[in-house]
């Protein structure tokens, strides 16, 4: 967790604590928990992080699941949580109703505005590639997992969901969260594995190269060529030898023929 995000968490904790202690919520937060205008005030890296987090938190959520949560405007006096508030421990002790209502708003916003969120993410990625490349996706996924677990826990603890389908829907939501966790763990594993593999290939390549050099130095590189040339010359001589032999025999035969012809005549 970065220092900036811990500071943010501390700020959110203080805010929540004050709300709980005083029984009053900041109205501004209640009315504007999620909107693009608020994102635009943030630096590009932070915008990218929050928009990604929003998509991951709402990923795979069915409309029926959202309908199960308390809908409509958040009552005056109730607190509304921002995305990052969900990852604080204090979120567990705030009013379950307020938390689920905030989650419903987050899910609805993410579902309805998904194309626009994706467009913005792409635009930020293009405009600030170096910045985006430095963002730790695993950290965002870890936050998304915490938020999703908080929401699932709250539904179960709240006891206000009467829908008989609720347990199955919560289970499906949790399964998607486990899938997200597994994907994150896989990415981490893959990174480590790639590093080991690359290193092993480089190490072994180096050892083999060193051996290859020793091997090249050890043998006489012209040996085979000399052998091949000698073999060719000797083969040619062998051929000539056969030519001579054949010529000699021909002469013998010719001599015999001449003698035979002489006899005939």
């Amino acid at each position: 967790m970065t220092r900036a995000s811990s500071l943010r968490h501390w700020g959110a904790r203080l805010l929540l604590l004050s709300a709980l202690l005083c029984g009053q919520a900041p109205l501004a937060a209640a009315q504007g928990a999620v909107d693009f205008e608020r994102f635009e005030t943030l630096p590009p890296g932070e915008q990218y992080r929050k928009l990604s987090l929003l998509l991951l938190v709402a990923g795979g959520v069915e409309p029926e699941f959202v309908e199960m949560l308390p809908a409509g405007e958040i009552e005056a006096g109730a607190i509304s949580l921002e995305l990052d508030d969900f990852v604080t421990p204090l979120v567990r002790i705030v009013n379950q109703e307020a938390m689920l209502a905030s989650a419903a708003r987050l899910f609805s916003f993410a579902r309805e505005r998904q194309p626009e969120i994706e467009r913005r993410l792409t635009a930020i990625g293009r405009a600030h590639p170096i910045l985006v490349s430095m963002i730790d996706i695993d950290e965002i996924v870890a936050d998304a997992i915490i938020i999703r677990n908080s929401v699932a826990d709250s539904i179960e603890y709240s006891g206000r969901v009467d829908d008989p389908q609720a347990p199955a829907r919560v289970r499906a939501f949790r399964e998607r969260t486990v899938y997200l966790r597994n994907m994150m763990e896989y990415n981490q594993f893959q990174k480590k594995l790639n590093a080991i593999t690359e290193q092993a290939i480089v190490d072994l390549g180096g050892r083999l190269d060193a051996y290859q050099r020793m091997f090249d130095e050890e043998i006489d590189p012209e040996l085979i060529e000399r052998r091949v040339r000698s073999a060719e010359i000797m083969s040619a001589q062998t051929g000539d030898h056969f030519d001579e032999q054949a010529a000699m025999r021909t002469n013998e035969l010719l001599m015999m023929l001449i003698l035979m012809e002489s006899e005939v005549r």
Partner: protein
Amino acid sequence: MIPFDRLNVWMKPLAALVAAALLSSLISSCAGTARGSRSSVFEHDRVLPVADLQMSKANALVVIRFPAIIHADAEEPYFHAFSINAIGGEVPPANRTKKVTTRIAQSVIAKSNYFVMSLYRELQKDLPENTVLLSPHIILWDRERGIYSRPILASEQIPSVVTVDFNVYSYPDTSALMDSPPVTFGDLVTPLFVVHSDHWVRPSTNGLLLSSEPLLEAAWDQSREQTASKLRSRLEFAPARDQRPLDFIAFLNSRANPGRSLPLKAVGDSGRDLLAVESYPVEKIQMNGALLENLSAESGLDPFAESFVRGAATRIIQTLNRVDHDRATFFSRQSALARFDPGLAVAVLAQAKDESVRARLQLAEALIEAERKFLAAQALSIYDGTYLGDYGVKMRQMIEGEYRLLENRRSMARKQNVTAAVAALALAGSIYGATASGAAGALSMQSFSGVLMLGSIWAMSSTLETRAESAEMSEHFLALIAPALERQISVQMEWLQSKERITAMGFAEFRNKTLTLYQARIRSMEVEFDSNCTFRHPAFTAPGSWYGGCRDGLADQRGYGVILDDAGNWVEFLGSAKGGLASGIGAMALGKSGQLGAAYFEGAFRDGRPHGIVRVEAPGEQPRIRAYVAGEDSGAAAAGQWRGLEL
């Protein structure tokens, strides 16, 4: 009787024809002895892009196996087996123990090391990165098994869609070179080639897809034994231990088992859907001489690729495009997983769809993929060292030298044959003349006894000499080249053995690290399988083993079942079961003792028998979609109605 004058008139064109025929037949019979085919049967295969649709990224597409080195203890038995089991003829016992025969046996290994690299490079160029692996083998011997081979790298532990066995071949007896046996010398190359896969990809041929004709029997037996060994291992819940030796070495080690009518089809047969092994004839390929003239100076030239490898590589790619990759690698993936995570291997056989299995499988496959990358880097390093390195340079020099020698011989043979043909024609004329008229005959004799008679005798004696000369010259050349060849082989062996040691050390270290990482990261699986669960089949009294869901000790839900009885009959099933019997969608392979190949049914089952729309595969036949009722074929069905097994 035909008057002489008339005879003379129509005999002239006939004489010309006789002369032409004599000339061509003499040229083809003598000069052809050292010639090969300029085009391979694979040449006309159309180049196709590779469609890699497999689900798993752990798999390799092709593993190429070849004889790389030989253990000192195996040399004598290998030489002996090489001379006894000759391809293209029978070597007389007196010639089997000649030194030159051992040289040829050695050259087969040395040249296979070189020529296989062409195939590797061509496939690597066309297939996705790191999906072509090399598996060099060491030839070994022990009293119990005779000669056999084992891989020196771990490439064959990686699941692969197809496996290719490749080597070149030369007939052991140089005295028979004029009889046109298969050789690999100079511009002539005789490749031997086998393509096989897991038996599940085609149970009707035990997974054997293509084989050089002489190796067919050995390759078939090896595929059958490999299948039986895997079934036994799975029946006993034991890890698979079978390691298939090279088919060429198995061929040398065992006399062919003739008399069996294996399901075969010709390479490039239009009926390629036929479930039979493609039989590749022995081809003595003649490479383009123009490319060989400067072979040692220009390493970028590859005459073998031009004449054979490109076509063969295209043929392999066509095979890759035709076979179902997931079906081809399902069991080899399971075997690969069993090496480091037996629990997960069982879950894969059980086709468990739980997220905990999926997540763990994803990590395990990443591990195999990493090993594949490592071994692909090793294959590339072998290629660099063998083909581009010192060895390749020497081999090119040697091949170029051999080529020059052959060309000299051919040139000599051409000259002799022209003279011989003219002389033969002259003789024919003189005989004719002698028959028609004594006077004319005497005149003819007088005229021919000059230059032409001299030529004919010279040509005949020279041709006779050439036969001996050819054999002796080849023998001479091999004897002269032998120290270099021997040195080259020993250096290559040293290089490969050291490479094996270094690579094995590196691979062991690497595997140790990756396994530690894997064990630290995996989570427990939320599924359990009863290892004491029974699978049954109505035709078998013996119970089988079941990997998968279980109820009351009997196979239930998805899983894998296998039965193997004492007579050698077997059944294998992958899919849904109920009450211990196949029931629902699945695939079943049935092998009967004494029968060639297994029958395969995929589709709907009930009470252990096909029931519904089923795809049927049988040896030597085309796959068919049939309707079945309680195991009885009730007629053809539409392909659209068929529902196959999803792995």
